[in-house]
């Protein structure tokens, strides 16, 4: 491409034009179906929007009222936001660890490796769209679950944790562990893509590097931290960002449901826009913080 670039303005101009032609559909879509609705939705979040049969849509500016309402008046929003962020942090950490471990396992040679890889990737297909939480989401089942937990609390994990609590194991840590254990299915279902990405990274590491490390007298543990981890670490950011966005976009998370309900059931378009902008800001903040942390950790190796 350097050779082409040096030939002067004419060709470069033509290349630039072709480049723009190639991305034209995307640009058009971005400007009309993304920037415009985004701008509108920001404006709407400062308005109260009404619908009427004759005049279509009416907008009344209300200033920051929607945002203030979300944080100070709405009884459930704050709690939901905190819950979701905590859940996101624990879940995405657990997802990364699990995906990395599974990728390490699948990188070894054994019979049925292809099959195992295929099964681990299956959730990418099976945990999308409607299939997320279809069984737990209908009102009937939720009602029944409440009934069951009220009437008897006798299942093995509850009994076990009751026992542990009675023996005085530290409470907050125990809660985190117990939540993760309950969520292990969700975590496995959310880690298909990450496993494959890690696996592809692991497969690019030449055998000779491990052999060299072994010659230098490093143990398997040491060569994991000295060889495997540094090579894989750039993928940590990719996977972390993917995990977080995936988590935030899931339709079964509380806030998504609330936004949807405010919009389509309560028809509060302005308020639901405000909620989704708050949510988006939190998501970006989380992505920013986590990629900063990982980058600090990774820099050490570069």
């Amino acid at each position: 491409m350097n050779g082409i670039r040096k030939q002067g303005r004419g060709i470069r101009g033509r290349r630039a034009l072709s480049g723009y032609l190639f991305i034209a559909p995307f640009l058009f879509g971005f400007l009309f179906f993304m920037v415009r609705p985004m701008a509108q939705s920001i404006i709407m979040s400062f308005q109260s929007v009404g619908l009427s049969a004759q005049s279509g849509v009416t907008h009344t500016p209300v200033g920051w009222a929607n945002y203030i309402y979300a944080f100070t008046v709405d009884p459930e929003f704050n709690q939901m936001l905190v819950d979701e962020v905590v859940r996101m942090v624990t879940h995405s950490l657990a997802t990364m660890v699990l995906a990395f471990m599974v990728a390490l396992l699948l990188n070894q040679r054994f019979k049925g490796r292809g099959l195992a890889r295929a099964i681990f990737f299956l959730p990418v297909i099976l945990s999308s769209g409607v299939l997320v939480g279809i069984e737990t989401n209908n009102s009937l089942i939720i009602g029944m679950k409440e009934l069951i937990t009220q009437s008897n609390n006798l299942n093995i994990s509850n009994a076990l944790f009751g026992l542990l609590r009675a023996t005085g194991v530290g409470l907050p840590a125990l809660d985190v562990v117990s939540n993760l254990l309950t969520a292990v299915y969700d975590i496995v279902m959310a880690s298909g893509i990450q496993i494959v990405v890690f696996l592809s990274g692991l497969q690019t590491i030449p055998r000779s590097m491990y052999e060299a490390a072994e010659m230098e007298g490093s143990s398997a543990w040491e060569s994991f931290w000295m060889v495997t981890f540094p090579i894989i670490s750039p993928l940590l950011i990719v996977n972390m960002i993917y995990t977080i966005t995936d988590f935030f976009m899931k339709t079964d998370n509380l806030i998504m449901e609330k936004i949807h309900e405010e919009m389509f059931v309560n028809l509060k378009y302005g308020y639901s826009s405000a909620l989704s902008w708050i949510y988006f800001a939190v998501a970006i903040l989380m992505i920013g913080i986590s990629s900063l942390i990982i980058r600090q950790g990774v820099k050490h190796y570069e």
Partner: protein
Amino acid sequence: MSKLTLERRADSFLTRNRKSGGLLLKQSLRRKAGSLLRALMLFGLCFLILQPILDKISVSLMMEKDLYDTTIIVIPRNLTLENYQLVSELLNLNTSMFNTAFISLVSALLQVIACTLAGYGFARFDFPLKRLWFVCVILVIVIPPQTISSSLYLHFRYFDVLGIFTRLTGGPINLKGSPLPYLALSATAMGLKNGLYIFMIRQYFRSVPLSLEEAAYVDGASTFGTFMKVMLPQAVPILVSCLLFAFVWQWTDVFYTRLFLPTANTMYLSVRLSGLAESLRTYVSTRRGITSPPVGYVMQIISTGVLVVIAPLLLLYLVAQRWFIESISSTGLKD
């Protein structure tokens, strides 16, 4: 293997072990234990993923009375296809399967075309503001479509381009309920997860050696001709897998389907499935005169419904598994 050779092998193992001072035995034991542990872990995790599907298959083949029989756990005593019949009636299977397949295929094709063009543009051309537009692609990946859903909805509900339709027909037109808005989004790479596809395709094109294109240019091929004849054939694997992802994710999507396609009588699998419990309730109350069906029965019907909806996808995955996985591996690391 004859007995003699077996003995000799055992013998040689023992002698070798003695010679190595017990190291051989220790190492091979450790290896065995390692692979056993690995097999256990992998089996457990795979079971965790597969169990719900297997469970659904077994439940879907039972008759309702089998659910309440405590001696039956996995294998149904009264095999029946009744549930499938009922589900296909409730889902309106023929129409909704056709509609879903149609919209998934068309929108997946449009999305992949738009994303390929954009991915190639970003991978191979230098133009002003390129970095800015690429940041926009990342933004598209990160912004939840829910953020803009309300204004998109209103945009297409009262659709108008620069006031043209108001002049022509005396008011904005209602595009809600027709698949057009969604196809427009697809054709402009704004559909479900399209930012991700652009990113993947760009990564792929960047890994194709430049010399291929340069050779074509030297031979006098045009920019677009080179793209079509030289670059596209190179990119078939990634294109196929993006197509598969787009198809599969569209198949199960409820968000866009609910947003744009008809709400009252929606004949799309995903939407019908999400309303299955409700339609079962109305069905039961009109046919059998009970107000609400028992919970176990609802779960059974939902399980059957899920199976019916994912069956084509599972089939697709069985056939095209390689395409799904390998493209991700090939795009994961580069750059």
